[in-house]
């Protein structure tokens, strides 16, 4: 095995430039960038349709992390020697790259590395909310939230006596904003997903944020599903906090991001205590470090930050507009193939129009249980998720215990959808 010319600043996307200003991406060639997609399962090539849970990695992300470990690794913020300085520089550069990716006005101070989106939301709950909310204060959530944006607030309801309110959903699986102003009355914080991990619904986040700000509330965006798939600009979203995970955007597990407005982050108390997050420690107290290190106790995920930066570079080379267009096309293809082959036997939960949904397709086929469906699909090499997708309140609202969820990303193509459809048909035969 040889690794030729591993670069810290990887480029690797299969782009064909016809014009120096407008890269045209040939998405049909992208599978070759992802080593895992060349393996087989049960004698079939892997058809990976579970990117809403976790995405695969292009070679350049793996190379960037390998290269870091093989040439550069040292702890950050603690050494004066060359390796440590290089590690420092890579870690800081990753922060800036990620900040630019989401349009952060002040990436050096406003991008906090966490473990994942879940930890990012917990950070806001444990620091901002605990120091700003008390008994009877209201946090407004939506019926579409992932458990990661529900349970931290339920914990605070138990601990502090805060009250939770919920924005419901309509019959086409959109947020029901008809009563938004009344729901916002007296609310201190709104926690809202930008894209449902079950329905694919892209929420009208900017509109909610504007109304929330008018009502004097802050707004936290759970961007775990949208940041990997849609162009993101925190200013345009109008959020005060944005949480997302690297492993859903071609990056490694173990690192996530919290972006927050600087003035809010400055006021918030530290999250976890330890090394790195302090200015000074005495027998009788400590002085917290400045941003962003105030929120990053202990040795951070350095190699993971390097991998995330490589993933961001890869996505930027593809262009998020192109990624979005590719997924819209693929979703529309899946919808038409499913309608053609299965008619009313196959139900897709979520808004019908591709403009208001991402490439997350929660399916019900006849009365075949999602576990059975997923089992038959696995036999054909098709990876989909079956279950409640960590959104039990939403599933109850939908009236189902579980769905089978197929979700697409940059490396998927029409042939993957065809294999999925064939496998669904086989399940239909088996359980006829």
């Amino acid at each position: 095995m040889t690794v030729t010319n591993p670069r810290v600043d990887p480029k690797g996307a299969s782009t064909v430039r016809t014009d120096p200003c407008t890269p045209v991406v040939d998405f049909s060639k992208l599978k070759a960038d992802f080593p895992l997609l060349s393996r087989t399962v049960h004698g079939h090539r892997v058809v990976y349709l579970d990117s809403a849970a976790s995405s695969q990695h292009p070679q350049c992300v793996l190379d960037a992390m390998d290269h870091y470990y093989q040439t550069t690794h040292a702890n950050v913020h603690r050494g004066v020697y060359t390796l440590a300085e290089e590690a420092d520089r890579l870690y800081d550069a990753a922060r800036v790259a990620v900040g630019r990716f989401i349009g952060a006005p002040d990436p050096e101070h406003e991008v906090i590395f966490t473990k994942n989106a879940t930890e990012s939301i917990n950070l806001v709950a444990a620091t901002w909310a605990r120091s700003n909310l008390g008994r009877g204060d209201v946090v407004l959530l939506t019926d579409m939230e992932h458990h990661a944006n529900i349970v931290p607030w339920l914990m605070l309801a138990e601990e502090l006596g805060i009250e939770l309110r919920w924005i419901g959903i309509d019959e086409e699986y959109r947020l029901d904003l008809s009563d938004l102003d009344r729901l916002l009355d007296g609310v201190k914080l709104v926690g809202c997903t930008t894209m449902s991990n079950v329905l694919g619904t892209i929420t009208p986040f900017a509109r909610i944020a504007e109304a929330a700000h008018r009502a004097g509330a802050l707004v936290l965006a759970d961007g775990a599903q949208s940041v990997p798939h849609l162009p993101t600009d925190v200013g345009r979203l109008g959020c005060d906090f944005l949480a997302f995970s690297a492993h859903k955007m071609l990056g490694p597990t173990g690192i996530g991001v919290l972006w927050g407005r600087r003035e809010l982050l400055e006021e918030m108390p530290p999250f976890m205590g330890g090394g790195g997050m302090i200015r000074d420690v005495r027998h009788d107290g400590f002085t917290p470090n400045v941003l962003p290190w105030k929120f990053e106790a202990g040795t951070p995920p350095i190699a993971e930050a390097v991998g995330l930066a490589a993933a961001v570079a890869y996505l930027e080379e593809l262009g998020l507009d192109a990624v979005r267009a590719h997924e819209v096309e693929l979703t529309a293809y899946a919808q038409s193939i499913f309608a053609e082959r299965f008619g009313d036997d196959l139900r897709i939960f979520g808004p019908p129009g591709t403009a208001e949904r991402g490439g997350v397709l929660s399916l019900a086929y006849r009365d075949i249980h999602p576990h059975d469906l997923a089992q038959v699909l696995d036999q054909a090499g098709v990876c989909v998720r079956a279950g409640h997708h960590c959104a039990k309140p939403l599933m109850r609202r939908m009236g189902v215990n579980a769905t089978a969820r197929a979700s697409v990303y940059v490396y998927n193509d029409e042939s993957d959808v065809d294999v999925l459809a064939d496998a669904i048909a086989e399940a239909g035969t088996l359980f006829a």
Partner: protein
Amino acid sequence: MTGLEDLYREIILDHYRSPRNRGELPAPPAQRVEGFNPLCGDEVVVYVRVQDGAVTDIRFAGQGCSISQSSASLMSSAVKGKTVAEARSLIRTFKAMMSVHEARLGDGPDGTGSSNGSGDEGPDTVAPDPESLGELAALQGVVKFPVRIKCATLSWNTLAQGLDEAEESATPA
């Protein structure tokens, strides 16, 4: 489809399509016990009537995949009319079938799936006598699909709890 015959045996599909003893019993006098598989959201409710040390009637309700539903159906047919001691023995045998085979499979990528929440498979589990299992032997193939073992054992664990509760409530205070 190749590879799935071991899982979806005809008997299993038959019990899934036409479940035996599906329904409810008035509780009391029956014991009503709920079982959940938090992993997939499957739930089963077992109603078991114990009289004079015997399972005189049993029903199950709830929703779940073909494995959990057919296992509940097969279980209900197998224990109805048996003494509580015989039913308990069958539960042990069935769960041994689920764990012994798994151990024999070795350390596959999902080799950690042996825990089914009840934690009562000791190291002394013995290979079950297939003769004693009858139709239940059709569920043997489930052990090749470790993620699904919990589906198969859900109703059995729930029944075990129901028998415990029946015996507790029968014991004079």
